[in-house]
């Protein structure tokens, strides 16, 4: 007995392109690949040049709008200050993300295992989510002594919900035939959770994680603005605020650039993680020809 298709496994490398249409398509793909990197870089270079020219042509004073050169000077000159601030903000963000993942995924599993718990607490999760964190933060810092704990709490409030809702969706998106199969084999509740529901939920969870990564940075920044600098030293957001009071606009831009870079880094890291975990089996990670 043989398999119905004689597909070699693992698949061998693709045959060389021969016909004109395929060659055209391959060329188009190559151009697009290059453009993916070149175009954004060109746009950025043009924007920076235009910014520089606008400042020079209009003689705009640096305490209103510094030129890109001055911002670069601040970035390199104040690097020690800014780097310390970035480390602090980054630490709060990462800790908040970890707590959001544990809390969000943990709650999702708890809700999934007990319908009664879900019915009791889900509405409050929604309320926590829809109330702007800027409005909650001042209250938090009244009752929470530790600045770090208060900042973590703020960041967690904004970041846990996408993890909770996407993981919940994932846990409930199990193929119904597979669910039946597990019942036929008398699987226990834990076997079902561990071997069926959690793997099914993984792609959804990772999608929620990507959103939570960005939100925990927002949460950390908001918390810093509300909490001020006392006690734990100043993060990037606090440096922005402080530099604003001193009309050091260049440093404001420099700190802002670092916040943006941090957001991009988090997104890229989580995208990579997602790709590595799904590339073997999930549709989203599969490249198809044509």
């Amino acid at each position, binding site marked *: *007995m*043989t*398999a*119905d*298709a004689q*597909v070699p*496994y693992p*698949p061998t490398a693709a045959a060389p392109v021969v016909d004109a249409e395929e060659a055209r398509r391959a060329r188009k793909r190559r151009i697009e690949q290059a453009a993916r990197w070149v175009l954004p870089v060109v746009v950025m270079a043009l924007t920076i040049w235009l910014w520089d020219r606008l400042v020079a042509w209009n003689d705009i004073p640096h305490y209103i709008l510094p030129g890109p050169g001055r911002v670069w000077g601040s970035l390199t000159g104040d690097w020690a200050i800014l780097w310390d601030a970035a480390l602090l903000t980054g630490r709060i963000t990462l800790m908040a993300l970890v707590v959001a993942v544990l809390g969000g995924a943990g709650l999702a599993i708890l809700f999934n295992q007990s319908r009664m718990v879900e019915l009791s607490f889900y509405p409050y999760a929604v309320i926590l989510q829809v109330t702007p964190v800027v409005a909650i933060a001042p209250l938090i810092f009244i009752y929470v002594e530790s600045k770090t704990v208060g900042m973590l709490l703020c960041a967690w409030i904004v970041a846990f919900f996408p993890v909770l809702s996407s993981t919940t969706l994932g846990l409930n998106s199990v*193929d119904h*035939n*597979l669910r*039946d*199969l*597990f*019942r*036929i*084999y*008398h*699987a226990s509740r834990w*076997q079902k959770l561990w*071997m*069926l529901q959690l*793997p099914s939920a*993984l792609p959804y969870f990772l999608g929620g994680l990507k959103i939570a990564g960005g939100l925990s940075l927002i949460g950390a920044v908001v918390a810093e603005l509300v909490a001020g600098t006392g006690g734990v030293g100043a993060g990037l957001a606090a440096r922005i605020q402080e530099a604003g009071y001193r009309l050091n606009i260049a440093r404001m831009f420099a700190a802002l650039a670092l916040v943006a870079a941090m957001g991009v880094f988090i997104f890229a890291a989580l995208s990579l993680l997602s790709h590595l975990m799904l590339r*073997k*089996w*999930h*549709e989203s990670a*599969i490249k198809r020809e044509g």
Partner: protein
Amino acid sequence: MVAVVPFDQRAEVLRMNAVDKIFPGDVQALRGMDLQVREGDFISLLGPSGCGKSTALRLIAGLSDPTAGRIEWAAERQAGDIGVVFQEPTLMPWATVMQNAYLPFRLEGRSFNSAKDDILQALRLVGLEKFKNAYPRELSGGMKMRVSIARAMVTNPKLILMDEPFAALDEITRFKLNNDLLEMQARIGCTVIFVTHSVFESVFLSDRIVVMAARPGRVIEEVCVDAPYPRTEEFRTSAEYAAHCRAASRALEAAMEAA
């Protein structure tokens, strides 16, 4: 008119006695179904959609309880006693072919190493040993279905339930899988209940065809296909096969009129 099933000495696996199933909204999916399943039987449930053939399968699998009547197993039912093949391959996409076939053992708590030989044997039986480390997305529809069959057979179950497993496949693949299924059944000697809406498939595969009618779902007739096994491609083109197909078609027409 009920065709007489020839008496044989094979032991009984299970028996359905006057089984009714009524769904909410007073939908009678099944009325008064009797069925006796013996070891080594290959029974097809044949009928139009809505005749309750899949419902009967779910009841036998224990996924749903009869509203009235009883399903009696000859021996106490264990977890590995039933293998199921659905219309879709229903594989876990995150697991390799081997891990998918390991699932029934894994749920029993058996270690992978102790189960490995059985898994490889099942994969050999369906001709996929070489693909043991592939992921489902790398396989064709027919190959996925083979993995699904290997998973159903790996525990050496008393009964294998198949719910229109080849309906979504092309005819060439379906014929091939029909042949291979019979070969596998002969080799491991399992009992099969096979749901289908194809007269040709049911005649080729089974020794008994239970013809069902819809609204309410019920058994109309039992057609006996007494052609000897092994059945090969020659059987598919024989006069005997054609005669059995005619008989089954007539029974199916009667079932459609009765509905």
